[in-house]
């Protein structure tokens, strides 16, 4: 039976961020991941490090998001130095387009509220079509405007995951590709089991996406999440023309465009819906009419792991101290704060930071 300080269940963006952060804090860590064709939110990510609009109704979430965004540059640099992998990280501000007047007006109200709630730490600009044209010459004529915030950025989410795995390994972390079959609290420790082996550890962190739902109750926790499908289109490589991330369109470092998105209630169906991707195509052409002749080479879908209020879950078990559960659908944006802040907090052996108390799943026990 192998002993570890911590076991992280889940090798996606959240699990790998935490596992890396724990290894970085000097812990002996094991990370467990599922087999190749398992459901993986980490592979379906758009790649945005997005601040504007997040937590408009929950200032704690807005603050948490900004805390991560602030640390991203150093985080990206740290991973690159350690692994040699360039994450294609850029934080030069992002646009969220408004396609009608009502949307524009509503957006301004939200942006203003976020600014006030943040004591002016958050900042934004509202741009009309004419102003947008100065920065984005290809903008379509029917786009009413956009909100711009210098806080927004983007990164290659797949390279981020790869870098986290590589860094984790370099710092002595052990990765096991084997689903967890059982989890037991034994006195002051935990036993994590796969079909073949048992592992003992002092702490267990559940970051297993949908599997959290079944694992959490074993350690006195609750993770009520449900799937929501989002579809993304990727195009052939085209000449660079979009140098900022936007909410619906993003150009990657090698020239391909990512186009999103959709919000579908289809359970665990990871298929493609022609009508939905048609909407994505129409919207992309509205925003940048030049895209009319650009070809899609792949459409894919992924399942967001959502809570009822759209906010994350961070929990430390009271009945089984040392067990934690994490869930969020913003694994990219929050990667920095997960790796740096949450992980070091767990490594020190404590409860999670007081600022995260409001994200306990207890808020659903009403």
């Amino acid at each position, binding site marked *: 039976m192998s002993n570890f300080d911590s076991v992280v269940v889940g090798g996606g963006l959240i699990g790998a961020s935490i596992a890396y952060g724990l290894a970085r804090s000097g812990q002996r860590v094991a990370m467990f991941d599922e087999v190749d064709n398992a459901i993986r939110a980490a592979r379906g990510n758009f790649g945005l490090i997005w601040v504007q609009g997040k937590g408009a109704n929950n200032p704690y979430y807005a603050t948490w998001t900004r805390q991560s965004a602030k640390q991203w540059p150093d985080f990206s640099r740290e991973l690159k130095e350690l692994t040699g992998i360039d994450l294609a990280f850029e934080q030069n501000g992002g646009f969220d387009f408004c396609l009608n007047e009502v949307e524009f007006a509503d957006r301004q109200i939200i942006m203003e509220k976020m600014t006030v709630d943040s004591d002016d730490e958050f900042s934004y600009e509202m741009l009309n079509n004419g102003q947008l044209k100065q920065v984005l010459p290809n903008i379509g004529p029917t786009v009413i405007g956009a909100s711009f915030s210098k806080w927004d950025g983007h990164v290659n989410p797949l390279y981020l995951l790869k870098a986290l*795995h590589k860094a984790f390994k370099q710092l002595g972390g052990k990765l096991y590709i084997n689903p967890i079959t059982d989890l037991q609290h034994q006195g002051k420790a935990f036993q994590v089991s796969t079909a073949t082996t048992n592992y003992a550890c002092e702490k267990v962190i559940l970051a297993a996406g949908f599997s959290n739902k079944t694992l959490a109750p074993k350690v006195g926790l609750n993770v009520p999440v449900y799937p929501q499908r989002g579809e993304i289109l*990727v195009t052939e490589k085209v000449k660079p023309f979009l140098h900022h991330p936007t909410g619906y369109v993003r150009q990657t470092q090698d020239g391909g465009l990512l186009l999103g998105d959709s919000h579908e209630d289809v359970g665990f169906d990871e298929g493609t819906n022609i*009508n939905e991707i048609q909407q994505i195509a129409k919207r992309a052409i509205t925003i940048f009419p030049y895209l*009319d002749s*650009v*070809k899609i*080479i792949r459409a894919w879908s992924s399942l967001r792991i959502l809570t009822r209020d759209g906010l994350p879950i961070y929990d430390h078990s009271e009945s089984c101290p040392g067990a934690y559960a994490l869930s969020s659908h913003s694994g990219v944006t929050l990667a920095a704060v997960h790796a740096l802040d949450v992980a070091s907090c767990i490594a020190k052996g404590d409860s999670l930071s007081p600022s995260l108390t409001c994200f306990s799943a207890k808020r659903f026990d009403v």
Partner: protein
Amino acid sequence: MSNNEYDIIIIGSGPAGISAATLADHHKARVLVLDENCAPGGQLYRAIEKNQKNDNEWLGQSYQDGLPLVEAFRESHVNYQRSAKVWHLSNDKVVHYSVNGKAYAAKGRQILIATGAQERPFPIPGWTLNGVMSAGAAQILLKESGVVCENAVFVGTGPLLYLIAHQYISAGIAIKAIIDTTPRGNYLRAIKYVFGALGSIKNILQGWRWKREIIRSGTLYIYNISDVKINGINSVVSVEYCQKGKWKNIDCKYVFLHQGITPEINTSLSAGCNKSWNERQACWTIDIDQYGQSSVKGISVAGDASSIAGGVAAAQRGSIAALNMLCNIDIISSNNREVFSKPFKRKLNAEMAARPFIDTLFRPHSRYRVPTSSNTIICRCEEVTLAQIQESIALGCKGPSQLKSFTRCGMGPCQGRLCGLSVSEILAKELRVSAKQIGYYKIRPPIKPVTLGELASLDEV
């Protein structure tokens, strides 16, 4: 039935597709055939109508054998849409395709996938250099446009390689060298299947005659080699091969590679059809029953698109699939399906009897399917090398999907057509499991690239 609804929609107008279409039409079904080329015949009988007015006897008799199929197809009442790129096939039998920049939808009661085969990847060092093409490309240049390449080097194994060499020699075109990569051990291994192949003795003799003709022509013919690579920086400068421990060089500007063909599986996989690994053919095949019915109800697969068996077999399988589809939609009875399919089944069995011999004889050596030189490019589109793949496997990638997300392998416009097989076999070798256990990329629409404008303009079905 409205304008865009059909009894049977057939994707592909090669021997399988047109045989199925003609037969279905004969039984008064309403048929639509979609093909991305501008004339029927697929790759095997490509440009066969155009070539009737040229003096092209060196294209060979087996090519000419396709003419009656195409003529019968033309004479039928099938709705034939050429230059149609099929980009989506849903499992409720709606086909989305584009012609001249406009997208259309058609609904079928039954769908037949007859998209044929493609060249097997040939990942040797230098295979992406400017000046390297497939032997299939040489065939297409010849058939479609009467264009040849003088003083090229042909490298590989398989009937198509000998065919193109034979055609070039018959037409008096100079070949710099033919480097035969057929593993010596294959001859011995194939012997035990030769009795099964005696039914198509004609083909075997023909292949042997071609080989003899190559040797007699004085063309430099090299065989029993242990390795081969292509040299150059911006384009090909030479081919190098290793024989008896010594590396030898042949200067050239153009190289044609070929080591067999494999089914075009992306269309079937995107529709949700199940697949299996065929160890003797070292490729994926689409699971079908004796009538060509796939694992998805209402979708059948015929010809080389399900498994490689050649043009004559494809025509039989297309006909059998058509009869079964007609039966599924109550145009013929199941009794008639059995009766009418008898002659096709007989001919098919004769063709299939030769497969073990052909497949074993021309099975490419594993070193040309899974390279050892780590700077060999595996994914041509995204320029991913074997070294990058091995690094990601060391990081914990245990399958094609995770490998894809770590390396971008398979993410380019060809969507894994030229790297998928290699990746499955590389993972199998590195992880010491079978290719069957590794699996293949998850294939998603569009089957072929489609513009945003086309997608946006599509009317609802």
